[in-house]
């Protein structure tokens, strides 16, 4: 049991090395986030009312973008250089790999964003009392995105014209998530019931993810 926990920790250590070969990578990601916000503001103009209207949308888009951008780190690299197989041989079942990869994607890609979310809120003139709601909904939403990203990038490994649409399907699937989370911000009255729905989606994707992605990984490795 202790061995198993150790292994998990070392898995995350490995992922850390892969995602962030140091502090400057984190910094780059965050810079990217802010530069993108700037770009939005330059292109739509700095009017407070409009900004606070669009703010949530902007942040969601950036979240979606960053998780799409990092999809290659998900399985692709480890698949291509055979590390997925080696990890499997070291006792990580495919499902476990998927769960761990999802968690590390969340930690190493989404968390840095979540930390700087309040500053982004200030820049986008979102009033401070909303920030609490925003953070909760983004927290849930980003886990969902991580799960969906896992499914899509494992599907892409199958490298078969039929599955080409893997990544696309998943982006499309994130639409309802976004609708809910965006909608959530306007409606603080029934925030709780909406957050429950989001939480429901989270549970479903989280449950499906290891199963679906694991199957894809297995198939991909067989065909390789």
């Amino acid at each position, binding site marked *: 049991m202790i*061995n198993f926990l150790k292994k998990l920790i*070392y898995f995350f250590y*490995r992922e850390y*090395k892969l995602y962030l070969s140091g502090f400057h990578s984190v910094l780059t990601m965050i810079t990217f986030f802010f530069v993108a916000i700037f770009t939005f503001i330059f292109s739509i103009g700095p009017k407070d009312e409009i900004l606070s209207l669009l703010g949530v949308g902007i942040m969601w888009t950036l979240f979606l973008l960053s998780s799409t951008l990092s999809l290659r780190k998900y399985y692709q690299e480890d698949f291509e*250089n*055979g590390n997925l197989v080696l990890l499997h*041989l*070291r006792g990580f079942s495919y499902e476990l790999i998927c769960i761990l990869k999802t968690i590390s994607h969340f930690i190493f890609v989404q968390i840095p964003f979540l930390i700087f979310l309040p500053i982004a809120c200030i820049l986008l003139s979102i009033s401070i009392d909303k920030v609490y709601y925003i953070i909760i909904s983004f927290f849930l939403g980003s886990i969902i995105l991580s799960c969906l990203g896992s499914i899509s990038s494992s599907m892409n490994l199958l490298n078969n014209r039929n599955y080409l649409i893997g990544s696309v399907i998943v982006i499309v699937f994130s639409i309802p998530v976004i609708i809910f989370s965006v909608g959530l911000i306007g409606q603080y009255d029934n925030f709780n019931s909406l957050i429950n729905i989001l939480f429901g989606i989270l549970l479903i994707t989280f449950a499906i993810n290891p199963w679906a992605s694991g199957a894809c990984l297995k198939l991909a*490795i067989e065909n390789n």
Partner: protein
Amino acid sequence: MLLLQNISLKRSNIEIFNDINLSLSKGKIISLKGKNGSGKTSLIKIMLNLLEPTFGTIYWKGKNIKKNLYSFYDQVTYVPDKTTSLKNLTVEENIKIWKKISLSDIGNSQITNILKTLKLENYIYKKVNSLSLGETKKLELLRLIIENRKFWILDEPFTNLDTESINIMEQTFDDHRKNDGCIFFSTHQRTEIGITDEIIL
């Protein structure tokens, strides 16, 4: 210990091989030879349950391998034919990651020693993608020592190595066999180690 029974394989509807029987047990070195495309790599993958054979079963300690997959994996080190080291990390980081993930209790001094015999000691802080092909292969083979398991399953372990390193590897193989280990490897090269069995596909 590991028993392959009546294994056959078709890939994209072409029959690759048929009715292979073999068994691995401690103290044996088995070499696998065959032409290009004769299915050596595929056989090794089947053996590791990474590829489903069209027909046949594999037993580990008398039971179907699928029943106790991880107890089998726990005894095996597999070195594939392609480079698996992480290219953007240094040699040291690669070793460290690998040591940790396989929960190896091998000491640092021992690793330094092996790095020295393999003449890799000057490259520990270099990134893997600036190593020469042979040096990368040596780094791959280092996993055999780091993981410290009984069964070694290797796919073309000698490619890109110079004669000197091949000799070192052969010495290592011999030592491993004497320590009750088992080695199964595919190769195109003629080697002079104490091969106890040769399978030709």
